[in-house]
């Protein structure tokens, strides 16, 4: 297949433009939905999508069109089709989290994020592939097959939000939703050449999203431009009475006008020294270094910043996150919903066999690591120590932000790996997360913005901001987009 021809990022106008066209009657919601469904149908070979919500999507599109016809306000996202990672509970089909244990599960309620988007007229057209329960960085751990990279289909799209990201790269919809627990939005965005946003922890409600690790999970929008991502975040952000970890939002996240005044955008940006070491591929390092140079040339002061504990962040992450995973996956026990071993005799057998069959090897690996680090006798040595290290890392990152406005570095140490390249080596797979997990442990916002290519594959620039500086981060990322062009 010819890859590049399928990159249809320009299938869609900017989201604001689409909405204005829908409102002015230039195009209808149903036309947009049908276009999206057609594109999905035509790109099946990439396996980006698990299921389509066609019937409900068309019905909702007709409602939006009817509203507009009668002169009513159809919302900030009137008629805009979108795709959600299949770990968002939504009506209109199944919610599987790409796991066999949830195959066939139909959500009786919707995630807050979906509700908010629908309230503004957006239309969910499909559910995207992911590593089962978001465990992975390539979608190779999906029980529904691997999502291929639209730029080079011999390579993975990345993960765990691989389906959501590939959907945007393939132009199946103007934007999609992913979740980012340790880099699951940013890493595939870097691999597939689109913009992936990880908001400050708590800025977007997690209610109704299948939990991976509660203390690091965030919901992030994926789109072609920073402006689109900001526009969607503006609808998603804010406190939710159903999620007690949510925080207050800014008045608006919508970016308007061009931002060329560097003094307003950023005084000083830090390049994280630990992010440009030997563990990072030379080509990737060069692309990121070039991006930093371009920023410098545009008038931004670039300094080197060291965050010593960042080297330990991956170890810390792979204790805390599996601990939470093992706990959050306890509810999938085959008793009330989801897969249940039909002929199990005793209760104990029902638990053991349902979970043994329902979970895949990577799920089980994380459950076992998590169970181990929380066990009495090991809790102090692992979980507690990791929690202390997390605090230390947060302090170091806060300290770095006393000197700089933003931190920059690569998103991942490599370009998208070949399909199967890391399949037999989980550790190598975990190493892909080395530069994204510190961000999740700290809760700070970060973005992946395309910054060039290496070996013909996209490379993303990761920009990280202090807690709650989402608006500033998005403004700076948009500024960078301008610098790059």
């Amino acid at each position, binding site marked *: 297949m010819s890859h590049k021809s399928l990159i249809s990022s320009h299938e869609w106008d900017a989201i604001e433009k689409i909405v204005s066209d829908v409102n002015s009657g230039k195009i209808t919601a149903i036309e947009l939905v049908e276009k999206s469904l057609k594109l999905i149908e035509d790109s099946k070979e990439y396996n980006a999508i698990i299921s389509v919500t066609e019937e409900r999507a068309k019905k909702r599109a007709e409602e939006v069109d009817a509203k507009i016809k009668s002169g009513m306000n159809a919302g900030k996202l009137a008629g805009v089709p979108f795709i959600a990672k299949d770990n968002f509970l939504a009506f209109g089909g199944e919610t599987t989290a790409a796991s066999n244990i949830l195959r066939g599960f139909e959500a009786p309620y919707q995630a807050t994020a979906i509700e908010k988007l629908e309230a503004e007229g957006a239309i969910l057209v499909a559910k995207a592939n992911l590593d089962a329960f978001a465990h992975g960085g390539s979608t190779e751990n999906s029980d529904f097959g691997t999502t291929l990279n639209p730029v080079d289909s011999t390579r993975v799209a990345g993960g765990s939000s691989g389906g959501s990201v590939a959907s945007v790269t393939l132009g199946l919809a103007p934007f999609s939703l992913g979740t980012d627990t340790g880099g699951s939005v940013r890493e595939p965005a870097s691999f597939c050449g689109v913009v992936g946003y990880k908001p400050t922890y708590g800025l977007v409600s997690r209610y109704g999203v*299948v939990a991976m690790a509660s203390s690091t999970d965030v919901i992030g929008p994926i789109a072609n431009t920073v402006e689109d991502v900001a526009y969607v975040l503006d609808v998603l952000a804010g406190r939710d009475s159903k999620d007690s970890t949510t925080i207050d939002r800014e008045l608006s996240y919508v970016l308007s006008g061009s931002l060329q005044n560097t003094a307003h955008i950023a005084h000083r940006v830090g390049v994280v020294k630990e992010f440009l070491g030997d563990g990072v591929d030379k080509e990737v390092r060069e692309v990121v270094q070039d991006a930093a140079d371009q920023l410098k040339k545009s008038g931004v002061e670039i300094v080197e910043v060291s965050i010593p504990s960042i080297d330990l962040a991956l170890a810390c992450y792979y204790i805390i996150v599996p601990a939470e995973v093992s706990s959050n996956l306890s509810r999938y026990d085959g008793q009330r919903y989801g897969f249940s071993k039909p002929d199990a005799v005793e209760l104990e057998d029902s638990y053991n066999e349902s979970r043994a069959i329902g979970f895949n090897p990577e799920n089980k690996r994380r459950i076992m690591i998590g169970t181990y680090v929380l066990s009495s006798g090991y809790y102090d040595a692992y979980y507690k120590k990791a929690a202390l290290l997390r605090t230390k890392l947060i302090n170091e990152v806060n300290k770095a932000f006393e000197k700089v406005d933003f931190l920059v570095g690569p998103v991942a140490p490599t370009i998208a790996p070949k399909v199967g390249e890391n399949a037999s080596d989980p550790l190598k797979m975990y190493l892909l997360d080395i530069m994204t997990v510190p961000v999740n442990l700290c809760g700070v916002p970060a973005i992946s913005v395309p910054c060039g290519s290496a070996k013909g594959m996209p490379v993303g620039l990761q920009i990280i901001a202090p807690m709650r500086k989402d608006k500033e981060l998005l403004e700076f990322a948009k500024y960078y987009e301008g610098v790059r062009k």
Partner: protein
Amino acid sequence: MKYKATIGIECHVQLSTKTKLFAGVDNDAREAEANTLISPLCVGLPGTLPVLNEKALELAIRAGIALNAKIAEYSKFDRKHYFYPDLPLGYQITQYDEPTILSGVVEAPLPSGGSVKVRVHHAHLEADAGKSTHPVGKNYSLVDLNRAGTPLIEIVSEPDMHTAEEAKAYARELYLLMKYAGVSDVNLFYGNMRFDVNVSVSATDELGTRTETKNINSFRAVEKVVEYEIARQIKELEAGNNIDQETRGWDDNAQKTFPQRSKENAHDYRYFPDPDLPPVVISSEVVEKERALMPTMPALLRTKFSELSIDSAKVEALLEEPTIAHELENIIDAHDINTAKMIANWYSGEIARLVGEEEITWDQVIGASARLIDLVAMIDGGLLSTTAAKDILKDLISSEKSAKEIAEEKDLMQVSDSGELEMIIMQVISENQKAANDIKAGEMKAIGFLVGQVMKASGGKANPGVVQDLLRQSLGL
């Protein structure tokens, strides 16, 4: 050998919130059909998150104040993991090492005299599990999740009790404290309070191995469990056997404990802080505000009631009805001690009997307070005998009529008018010349006889004090 028993009690108290601890669904599962009071969280659906019910926190603070405990400025929730069909999340949300209620102390009076002082180690907030039933002869079990997520506090005592009487007294005192704090319906039948009783015996200063008998739901059973376990453990030790550290159950029909789970099968609960719930921060202002809203608690009421010279069993019975106990307190504070004594005696005597027989309600008794006080004043003023007063209590409390109206209707008003009484007295003296002469001769005992005759002749309406005075006058004493 002489054995010493050591007892500690864990008590689960169901908080009487409108909704569950972390979900906005009805908390009152008593009359509801199975699995109707449930939300996505109660069923453990994917994507659900707990949100702390602020009212439950407020009740926990009140419970803490009732336990004379410190309230933690900072506390948090943890997850306790185990698999069971009535635990939909696969973990219970509880407080493991930083509970909201810190150390406190409870002093419980003993029926045999004196009291037992029991330190409270801490009390923590947690969500209850659902209810499993195992129909006999069937190859299935049933799960009702209505109770899943109901807020509980678990009060953990220090091992400060040594007898069955002390254990029972402590359990009952917790019941009174929770009742007065207004944090629970304290209905033991519905399992609003459940006790886990830890017992060990030892012939030395070192503590013996303990057993924990779980889910006891009456004070009487707490007492029986302790008696049984002490006897059983001593017997085992005397026979040269070891005591197994185990969980036991109580068979109320057989009046025996029985083994349920040994320590080897103990779970590793893998506690860790629940990342879905931010820590709980409680300012001292909030605690003080709640403290100011607390009613007078049983300990202080006992002190206040001690001057009424009613026996302690009656005091304890009065304390079962907080509204009545507080009404009595108001009367003590606002009136003279004799008035309070008289009313206290009615409360714990005639009125308690009438309430028991469902002739009147405690609410009516409270509503009749002003009339009861008037009634005492009439006795003091010589207008009514104490016997007559007792006879009209029922009508007084159940109607709106005043004591005077009822007494007049029933023709029970005392005669203190000396003219009327003197006529009767002269009549009585003339009919009882011998007694009159005896009295004149200094045989004072006989005066009581004459008073009695006058009372009889007046049909019980004469004021005995006035009669005595007039008799003395007539006899020239």
